[in-house]
């Protein structure tokens, strides 16, 4: 259904692009919950670009599940830039030759202008006293997470727990897998997606802890009220990246390389970083991070590259068919 709407919006874009007054039009294919970030960012860039070059630039947004978006781009959705929440989705485009192989080096910080962290959301007063990953395997504690194999959010949770178990005294892969087995036993369900997990936890009141992005916690506060829950930062968690890349084939064809590059670079500007922080995404710029330090308590994080040797390797070892996730369910 989402794929379909992507095509329809692409079709509509194609129909109206000619009639637009803009000097250039960019299409940004983005992940599902990025709406707010880019809704605020696009006008900032338009203003900046107008002041700098006098050009009117129009920016279209296309949102959908990260993997679906990438497949749409591979199938011909003419996006100038992709702004995703998983590196392996952009790797897929690199394999297809739409994005350059060394895309992570084209922009600073591994081509990820802002980050987030996986955190625990617990009920008000933290009745089960949940402090760290080890508390989640206690009998009778229920965790709410999206499907670890099918959703980025679920995969991040899985890898965070794995990395934590690995870093415990005497930790190794076998012990980590055992820990994950116990952890997943405490999941009464796997939600269809990140927002579905949130609804299940907050509205349907299922489970004792929801594991999600730090940025999602603020969405929950807006929706359900701040006093309804508490955020718990585990002793180690994943720093999630939001990689961006230029779709080489499209910008060459449309002649929008300059504008598209400037658009992505602007994410690292003061304005871009401020905007990320205001949307509760951790800015890369140290000064901005300090300014918004009340949003972002210090937390010990790891990156997928450090622990798993890259997004593709992590995916292959854990989420491909026959990977560690499948093994957990086969040993039963």
């Amino acid at each position, binding site marked *: 259904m989402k794929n379909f709407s992507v095509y329809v919006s692409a079709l509509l874009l194609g129909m109206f692009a000619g009639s637009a007054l803009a000097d250039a039009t960019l299409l940004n294919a983005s992940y599902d919950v990025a709406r707010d970030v880019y809704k605020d960012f696009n006008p900032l860039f338009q203003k900046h670009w107008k002041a700098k070059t006098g050009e009117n630039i129009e920016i279209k947004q296309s949102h959908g599940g990260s993997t679906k978006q990438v497949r749409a781009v591979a199938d011909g959705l003419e996006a100038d830039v992709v702004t995703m929440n998983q590196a392996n989705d952009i790797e897929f485009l690199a394999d297809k030759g739409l994005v350059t192989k060394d895309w992570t080096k084209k922009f600073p910080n591994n081509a990820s202008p802002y980050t987030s962290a996986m955190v625990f959301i617990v009920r008000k007063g933290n009745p089960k006293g949940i402090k760290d990953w080890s508390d989640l395997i206690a009998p009778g504690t229920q965790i709410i997470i999206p499907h670890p194999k*099918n959703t980025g959010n679920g995969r991040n949770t899985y890898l965070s727990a794995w990395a934590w178990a690995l870093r415990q005294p005497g930790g190794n892969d076998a012990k980590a897998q055992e820990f994950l087995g116990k952890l997943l036993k405490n999941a009464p369900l796997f939600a*269809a997606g990140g927002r579905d997990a949130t609804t299940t936890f907050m509205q349907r009141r*299922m489970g004792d802890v929801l594991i999600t992005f730090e940025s999602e916690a603020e969405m929950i506060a807006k929706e359900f009220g701040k006093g309804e829950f508490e955020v718990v930062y585990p002793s180690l968690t994943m720093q999630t990246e939001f990689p961006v890349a230029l779709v080489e084939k499209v910008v060459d064809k449309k002649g929008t390389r300059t504008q598209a590059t400037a658009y992505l670079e602007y994410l690292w500007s003061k304005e871009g970083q401020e905007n990320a922080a205001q949307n509760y995404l951790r800015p890369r710029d140290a000064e901005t991070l300090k300014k918004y330090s009340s949003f972002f308590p210090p937390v010990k994080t790891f990156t997928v590259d450090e622990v798993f040797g890259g997004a593709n390797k992590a995916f292959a070892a854990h989420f491909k068919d026959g990977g560690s996730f499948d093994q957990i369910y086969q040993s039963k």
Partner: protein
Amino acid sequence: MLPGFGLALGYTLVYLSLLILLPLGGLILKASELGFSQIIDIALGERSLAAFRVTFGASFLAAAVNAFFGLIVAWILVRYPFPGKRFVDALVDLPFALPTAVAGITLATLYAGNGWLGRFIEPLGIKVAYTPLGIVVALTFITLPFVVRTLQPVIEDIETEVEEAAASLGASRWQTFARVIFPAIFPALLTGFALAFARAIGEYGSVIFIAGNLPLISEIVPLLIISKLEQYDVLGATALAVVMLALSFILLLAVNLLQWWTANRHKNDEPLEVAAGKASGATT
């Protein structure tokens, strides 16, 4: 008969080819990149097998539930005038129009432990949301119109005089139903059942929100297909799809044969009026 058979047949063939055969052909062509044994390996994995069981089992149950209650709904809607009948009639089509994801989220909220229904049935030990039972509930909701809408015109065709004739000839109410009415609507009931069943097998949107999606317990085949696509494993997804298609085709074919057989038997039998006489004859 109106002329133009050639043109109409040509149009039919082109239309069906473009709409159905072309995509199906593409699917099978893609799957043929894998060997037959590989396709079987993928389909016979522990998780795939469990998913096939859940999908076909839940679809069968949902279609069966609708065959029973859908028949009652259709009967009431055709035979009895009552206030708000048009409203109820329109209600039946709602599952057609509602986006399936909305249906799934609504049902999950309704049947969750603190939902309007869930709070009453969970203390009784009946868990619906996030269990295989939830899948059956979602599929029953989605497929209701198929049975009702298939049966309605057929029931309309049975004149009430037939019932009167059976009664006047001494048939009991049960005999009238079992030997006069039911044989007449049974082929349509099978069609409705088959449509509902086929629709349920392919359903994804509503199920994933209420199923719980636990491996080996409440994963459906379409979810595994999406899971393969998430891995950019198009071939694996295609293999599962082809196996699902083949199984559905065999089952639908069986239902069609059964339907053809019952319809034929009925045709060779006797008109309804005679059946009415016979039904009563049995008692006299």
